[in-house]
C-alpha cells in the first residue's frame, strides 16, 4: 500500500541541533494517537539545503515546505494538514505561499537555479535505509560496471566526463583513476577524503549524512576500475551523525552482500572501513591523510612519489573527495556525455557550495559550473541581510582568496577563480558585507593556518607565524609602509618553499586581500583607521557635543566608568579608560556617540 503522505524531517547537523529529533518523535507519537501511523510515512532525511530556515519539515505529495518548526507545532500540522488536508500557512516558507495555494519548492528562488546531481538523494531518502537508496537506482551503476564494462572502460568513461576533483585541487579524476590502475602493485587501496576542515564548509558532511550509499557505491566502482579490494573513508570525528550514518550504511551494504568477498557472486571483492580523523586540518592533505590512516602522526611528505604510485602503506592508492565520489554513479548511469553537457568548457558538471556569512539563505546549494557569483548571492542566497552592501565573497577557505564586489559577474569555475587569485576550494563560500574588515579577515584565516600548521617544514611553521605578526602589527595601529612589500615577499617565499598544500596556500587570503583591498591596508597603516570599524585598536569613541542631551544612559552603562558628565550636560569619554566595547553607542538614544 502506498502511504497517503510522506513527512520528511531534516536530520542534517544543522536541523538536528535545533531539535529535529524531538520533532520526529512528536510526529511519531501524534500519528499513533490519530491511528495514522500505517498511512503516513515519516522519514528522517539528510539536508534539504535551506539551513537558515531549519528545522525544516516537508510534507508530500503537496510539497509543503514548513520552516522553523518546533515540536509544539507538530500537533497542528497533524490535525490540520495530515487529517484534514488544510496546509498550515503560518509555518510555510514564505516564498512558497501564493494567493491561490502553494508554489512548488522548485519554483522558489533558492531552488530554481540549482541543479542537483551530487545531492540528488539528499533530503529525499532515509539515509539509514538501503532499500530507499536502491529504489532511487542505487547500486545499479555498480551492477552495470561489473557485468557489462571492463575496468578500462570505466576509467575511460570517467575521463570522458571531464570530472575534476571536488576537494579543491581540480585535478582530472579520470587521470587519477588511470594512474592508479596502471600502477604496479600486489595490493591497491581506494580512499575517500572526508576530512572537511575549511571553516564554514559542510558539503561533504551533508552528502555523508544524506546519502552515504552513493559514496560507498562509487568507491566500489573505483575499486573495480583500479583493481583494489580495500577502501578507507577518512572522516572527521567531529561529524558524529555522518560517521554513524556511514557506519549504518556500510553494515547494511555488507548484509546485502554488496561489500565483502565475491560481491553478489560476481567474483569482485571489495570492503570498506572508516577511519576517524582527530581534527587536524593538515590531515585533509592527501599524504598526511594516508600517514594518519597508517596510524602515524598526521604529517605530509614530499611528492612525488604520488599516492597513485606509492600511497597508503606504500601501495598504489586512489584518493578522492566525498563530492567527487558522489558524482560517479550518475556518470556511469547517464553516461559521460550527459555529464559533460553541464558546466563550462573545462569545468564540467555541478559544484556544491556551503553558503555562509552575511547572506539571507545560509545553506547548501548545488549549481552548474559557470553560474555567476551574482546569481548565487542575489538569487539563490537571497542577498545580503539588513540592506547592507556586498563587499566580497571568500572561496576556498584558508587556502583560497576573495572575490571583490566588482567581479560579482564572474562565472564560477576552476580556471576563472584561479585567474583572479582565488580558488574553487572544497566549496565554502563566505559572503562579506561592508562591515567586514578585509585585513581582519586575512588575519582570521592566517590565525587558523598558523594554528593548524603541523610544524614539519620551516617556511610554513615560522613563515606564517611571522606573517601573522605583521598583520597583528597593522591591525593594532603600529603598521609601517614598509610592511606591505615585506609581507608580499614573505608570502611568495612561503608559497614557493612549503612542503605541502597547507603551507603553499596559506598566504593566499593575505595576497588576495592585498590585491583587491590594498587601500584598506594603507588606511590601517597610514591613517591608523579601520574603514569597516572592526579593528578595535584603531577605533575611538567620542561624544558629539551638539547631539548629547545629558541623559546619563551611556555613563550608567559603561562597564569601565570611562564616561563622565552631569545630568543635562554634555558627557565625555576618557580614551585612556575606554575598552571600545561599543555599549555606549548602542545605548545612546540620540546617536550622539561616534566611532572613528
Amino acid at each position, binding site marked *: 500500500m*502506498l502511504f*497517503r503522505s510522506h513527512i520528511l524531517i531534516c536530520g542534517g547537523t544543522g536541523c538536528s541541533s535545533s531539535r529535529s529529533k524531538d520533532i520526529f518523535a512528536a510526529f511519531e507519537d501524534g500519528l499513533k494517537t490519530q491511528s495514522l501511523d500505517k498511512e503516513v510515512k515519516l522519514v528522517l532525511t539528510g539536508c534539504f539545503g535551506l539551513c537558515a530556515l531549519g528545522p525544516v519539515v516537508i510534507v*508530500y505529495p503537496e510539497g509543503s515546505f514548513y520552516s522553523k518548526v518546533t515540536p509544539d507545532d507538530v500537533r497542528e500540522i497533524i490535525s490540520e494538514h495530515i487529517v484534514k488536508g488544510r496546509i498550515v500557512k503560518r509555518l510555510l516558507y514564505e516564498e512558497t505561499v501564493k494567493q491561490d495555494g502553494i508554489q512548488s519548492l522548485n519554483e522558489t528562488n533558492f531552488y530554481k537555479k540549482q541543479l542537483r546531481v551530487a545531492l540528488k538523494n539528499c533530503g529525499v531518502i532515509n539515509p539509514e535505509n538501503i532499500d*530507499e537508496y536502491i*529504489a532511487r537506482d542505487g547500486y545499479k551503476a555498480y551492477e552495470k560496471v561489473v557485468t557489462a564494462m571492463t575496468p578500462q572502460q570505466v576509467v575511460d568513461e570517467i575521463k570522458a566526463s571531464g570530472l575534476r576533483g571536488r576537494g579543491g585541487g581540480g585535478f582530472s579524476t579520470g587521470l587519477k583513476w588511470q594512474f592508479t590502475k596502471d600502477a604496479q602493485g600486489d595490493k591497491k587501496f581506494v580512499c575517500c577524503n572526508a576530512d572537511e576542515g575549511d571553516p564554514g564548509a559542510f558539503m561533504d558532511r551533508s552528502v555523508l549524512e544524506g546519502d552515504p550509499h552513493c559514496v560507498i557505491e562509487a568507491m566500489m566502482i573505483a575499486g573495480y576500475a583500479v583493481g583494489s579490494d580495500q577502501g578507507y573513508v577518512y572522516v572527521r570525528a567531529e561529524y558524529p551523525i555522518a560517521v554513524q550514518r556511514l557506519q549504518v550504511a556500510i553494515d547494511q551494504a555488507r548484509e*546485502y552482500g554488496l561489500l565483502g568477498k565475491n560481491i553478489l557472486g560476481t567474483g569482485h571483492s571489495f570492503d570498506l572501513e572508516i577511519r576517524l580523523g582527530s581534527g587536524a586540518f593538515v590531515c585533509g592533505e592527501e599524504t598526511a591523510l594516508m600517514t594518519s590512516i597508517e596510524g602515524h602522526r598526521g604529517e605530509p611528505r614530499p611528492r612525488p612519489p604520488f599516492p597513485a604510485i606509492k600511497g597508503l602503506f606504500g601501495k598504489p592508492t586512489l584518493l578522492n573527495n566525498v563530492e567527487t565520489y558522489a558524482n560517479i554513479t550518475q556518470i556511469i548511469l547517464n553516461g559521460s556525455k550527459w555529464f559533460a553537457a553541464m558546466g563550462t568548457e573545462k569545468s564540467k558538471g555541478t559544484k556544491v557550495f556551503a553558503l555562509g556569512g552575511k547572506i539571507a539563505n545560509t545553506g547548501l546549494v548545488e549549481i552548474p559550473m559557470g553560474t555567476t557569483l551574482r546569481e548565487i548571492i542575489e538569487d539563490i542566497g537571497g542577498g545580503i541581510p539588513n540592506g547592507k552592501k556586498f563587499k566580497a565573497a571568500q572561496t576556498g577557505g584558508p587556502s583560497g582568496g576573495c572575490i571583490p564586489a566588482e567581479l560579482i559577474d564572474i562565472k564560477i569555475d576552476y580556471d576563472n577563480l584561479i585567474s583572479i587569485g582565488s580558488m574553487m576550494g572544497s566549496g565554502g563560500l563566505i559572503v562579506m558585507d561592508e562591515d567586514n574588515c578585509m585585513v581582519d579577515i586575512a588575519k582570521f584565516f592566517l590565525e587558523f593556518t598558523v594554528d593548524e600548521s603541523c610544524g614539519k617544514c620551516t617556511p610554513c611553521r615560522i613563515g606564517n607565524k611571522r606573517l601573522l605578526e605583521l598583520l597583528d602589527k597593522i591591525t593594532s595601529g603600529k603598521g609601517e609602509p614598509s610592511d606591505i612589500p615585506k609581507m608580499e615577499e614573505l608570502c611568495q617565499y612561503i608559497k614557493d618553499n612549503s612542503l605541502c598544500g597547507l603551507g603553499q596556500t596559506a598566504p593566499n587570503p593575505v595576497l588576495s586581500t592585498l590585491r583587491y583591498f590594498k587601500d584598506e591596508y594603507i588606511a590601517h597603516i597610514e591613517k591608523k583607521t579601520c574603514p569597516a570599524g572592526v579593528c578595535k585598536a584603531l577605533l575611538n569613541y567620542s561624544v558629539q557635543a551638539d547631539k548629547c542631551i545629558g541623559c546619563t544612559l551611556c555613563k550608567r552603562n559603561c562597564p569601565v566608568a570611562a564616561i563622565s558628565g552631569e545630568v543635562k550636560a554634555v558627557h565625555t569619554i576618557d580614551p585612556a579608560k575606554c575598552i571600545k566595547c561599543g555599549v555606549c553607542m548602542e545605548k545612546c538614544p540620540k546617536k550622539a556617540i561616534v566611532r572613528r
Partner: protein
Amino acid sequence: MKSFAELQQIRERLKNEVNQRENGEADIRIVVGMATCGIAAGARPVLTAFNHEIDVRKLSNVKTVQTGCIGMCRLEPIVDVITPDGKKVTYVKVTPEKVVRIVAEHIVNGKIVDEFLMPANS
C-alpha cells in the same frame, strides 16, 4: 546475500513510494476533500482506495493530495482529478467502489466516468 535480481525487485517495489517525494510536471493529481465533512462522509477509505489502486497498477505519475472543504458538504466525498493540461474533473459522493472505476476508466484510459460527476445544476 542478495542478488542483482533481488535488488531490482526492491527497486520496483519502492520506486513508486519514494517518487511520491518529488513533484513532477506531468503528474495527474487526485485531490480528495478531507475536511470534517469529507471525513464524516467517508473520504478516508476513498483516499486509501486511490493509493491502493495507484500502487497495484504502478502508476508512477499519479499523486493523491488532500484538501479542505470546498463548500458542498452534502456531496462529499468530493474528488477532483487534475490532468497535466490543467483540466479539472470533479466527482462527487465517491466510494471505494467508485474509485476502482475512476482509476481504471479515467486515470488509465482517459475516459471520464460521467455518471459519477457533479450534477449540472447543483
